[in-house]
């Protein structure tokens, strides 16, 4: 019986590796962009580019917000957004600075800083998930609330007393590789395993795609959402260590403004959809490096900070829009331009196209067929070509006839309306 022979393990779909589709993957496109920026920098400032310490320092310049990108991936996967991350980062920095001022142990300082981040994230998460407020407005409000708290405590003062090793983390290299990059990659690996290999990651995708369906299939949406916001807060805390280090061990209440925008831009550029349920960890990791190189390159080429913001904004828009220009949109445009907005005509054309491609496949198979002689092959090929020509001709004729019919109908209705 044939039904017995159908393999039951075919449920586990494993796509075979195809070079063509691998090369046009979004992650690979990001790699090309990264290479392109490097080439531009190389050509524009060759002396500078090949100096010993340039590339590590470029990478270091982008690492202060890198950890928040990882947290933001999870948040965006849920279909939420968090614009309070920069403020949480400053809160964590303030807690660490104040505790160090009070003469605490370094370990306690860092732990309390991270705890502050967790609490801020918990606050966001409870408001969003438990009370059901929209994430946009909650985080807009908390971003001004958290920064406001820092302003109340610090006013215009600057905290200067931080553990010394913060700066080492942000500025040192091991064998020419920045320490910050190593830590970032390690964290990214953890996030990638959690997201792509674990049960929790699948839950996130499911909630992002359809929160109601995932609730009915027994997922605790509220708890998961709160947990993700807590993770975001924790990562903002981690980030504040690098941030304070980058700033040379100083912190004021106005620092890090606009970082949330960069973080979201990087995550979106990395291919994470803002409507939820789509995205991977690899993309944003590459996008972090792209942003670092891009802003450094523009800085070297003499573009000032405010103008750089325009580029960040444009990148954000382009990155969001590129997935939109997909097959569906092309089909829609075709329908409007060639098929007179009529689904029947489209259907006829698609059917014809499919048949033609099938015949083409047969022709290809014919080439590798060794059982037939050359003369037979030629004859068969001729027959196939004739078939294709006949099909396309017939398709064009039907299309024309249908379009004419549509036109006549339209004229009729127009006449009826004018009467």
């Amino acid at each position, binding site marked *: 019986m044939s039904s017995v022979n159908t393999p039951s393990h075919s449920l586990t779909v494993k796509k075979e590796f195809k070079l063509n589709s691998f090369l046009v993957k979004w992650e690979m496109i990001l790699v090309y962009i990264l290479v392109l920026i490097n080439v531009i920098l190389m050509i524009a400032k060759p002396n500078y580019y090949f100096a010993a310490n340039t590339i590590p320092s470029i990478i270091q310049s982008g690492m202060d917000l890198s950890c928040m990108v990882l947290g933001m991936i999870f948040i965006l996967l849920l279909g939420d957004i968090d614009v309070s991350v920069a403020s949480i980062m400053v809160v964590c920095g303030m807690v660490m600075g104040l505790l160090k001022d009070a003469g605490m142990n370094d370990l306690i300082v860092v732990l309390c800083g991270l705890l502050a981040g967790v609490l801020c994230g918990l606050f966001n998460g409870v408001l969003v998930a438990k009370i059901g407020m929209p994430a*946009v407005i909650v985080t807009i409000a908390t971003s001004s609330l958290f920064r406001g708290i820092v302003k109340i405590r610090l006013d215009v003062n600057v905290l200067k007393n931080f553990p010394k090793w913060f700066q080492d983390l942000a500025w040192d290299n091991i064998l020419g590789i920045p320490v910050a990059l190593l830590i970032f990659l390690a964290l990214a690996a953890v996030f990638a395993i959690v997201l792509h290999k674990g049960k929790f990651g699948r839950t996130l995708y499911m909630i992002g795609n359809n929160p109601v369906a995932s609730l009915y299939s027994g997922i605790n949406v509220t708890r998961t959402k709160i947990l993700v916001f807590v993770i975001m807060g924790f990562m903002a805390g981690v980030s504040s260590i690098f941030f304070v280090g980058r700033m040379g061990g100083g912190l004021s209440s106005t620092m890090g403004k606009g970082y949330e925008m960069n973080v979201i831009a990087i995550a979106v550029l990395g291919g994470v959809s803002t409507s939820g349920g789509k995205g991977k960890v690899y993309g944003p990791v590459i996008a972090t490096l792209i942003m670092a190189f891009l802003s450094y390159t523009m800085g070297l080429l003499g573009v000032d900070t405010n103008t750089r*913001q325009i580029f960040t904004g444009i990148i*954000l*828009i382009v990155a969001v829009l590129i997935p939109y220009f997909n097959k569906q949109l092309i089909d829609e445009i075709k329908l409007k331009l060639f098929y007179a907005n009529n689904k029947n005509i489209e259907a006829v054309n698609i059917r014809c196209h499919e048949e033609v491609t099938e015949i083409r496949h047969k022709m290809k198979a014919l080439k590798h067929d060794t059982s037939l002689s050359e003369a037979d092959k030629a004859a068969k090929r001729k027959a196939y070509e004739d078939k294709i020509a006949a099909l396309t001709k017939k398709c064009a004729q039907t299309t024309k006839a249908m379009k004419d019919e549509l036109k006549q109908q339209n004229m009729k209705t127009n006449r009826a309306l004018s009467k």
Partner: protein
Amino acid sequence: MAAFPKTRTSAQKQESIFERILNYKQFGLIVALILLGLLAKFITPAMYQPASLVAMLRNNSIYAILAIGEMVVILTGGIDISIASTLSLSGVISTTLMTQNPSVPAIVWVIVSLAIGALCGLFNGFLIGKLKMTPMIATLATMYIYRGLAFLISGGVWLFPNKFTEDFTVMSQGSILGIYNITWITIILFLVAGVFLSYTQPGRRIYAVGTNVESAHVSGIKIGNVTVMSYVLCGALSGLAGVLYTANYSICYYGIADGFEMQAIAICVLGGVSLIGGTGRIDGVVIGAVLMSVISYFIGLLPGLSVWQDAIQGAIIIVAVAINIFTERMTIKRILKERGAMI
């Protein structure tokens, strides 16, 4: 068969005046306003002098104008955080042009600023309505683009009062019947917006789209066009606010109005405009604007409280949204209870 639930009009007729006042959506806000007013009577009696009341209204008119635009966008279920940048861009362009051509009448600059604002809004609307970007992301991006453009166009130059013509500044600073022109303009805009949203076809369409996109689409409303229209209106109002801002303070540089979008959103949320879209009325926004200006007056007046501004603002938004959500849930519960009693 179960009895038909009562229609709304018949239910309303049976309510006494007292009940109607209690059920008025902005009742809580008015109570809060009265309480704050009483508090001011004891703490800062200076607030009740006519001069300071008028000044308070003048200083908060920009927020109110922005809030009207923001409300239109929020009603469709979107959000626009680029309004402050639009304000800055249109203010910078029209004021720079004004200083170069001082002989041109001021009304031209009003039209220019409206056009610039509408263009900015059109771009936002195109991204969101036609290309289906998330409103938050699209306006986050344009917020930085417009601010950057404002910097590029102004070249980072500050324009000081000596460059401003009398004709230009009188738009905001002049006064009729003791109230500043900018406040009059705001009042007129509130009236126009109220009529537009409640009594015109496009206004009702905005509510329809915000309440239920699917059913609006099925009933023949072009969702994309309505969305674009709402963002264009919001942008045009922000553009107008730009020229009024520079005329009001006689100063102009690319960084003006930083963070005003927060204030506008706060006013809308306070006024009972639901961020999910479809609910919210202009009277709520009026009361929200007045309440917000009283609160910021308090903050400005009490010594040592100015650093608290950000935190208080954030807390107010959170509390207001939470109250909104709870009252909505209560309303739904009440309606269900009434229906249950009928069956």
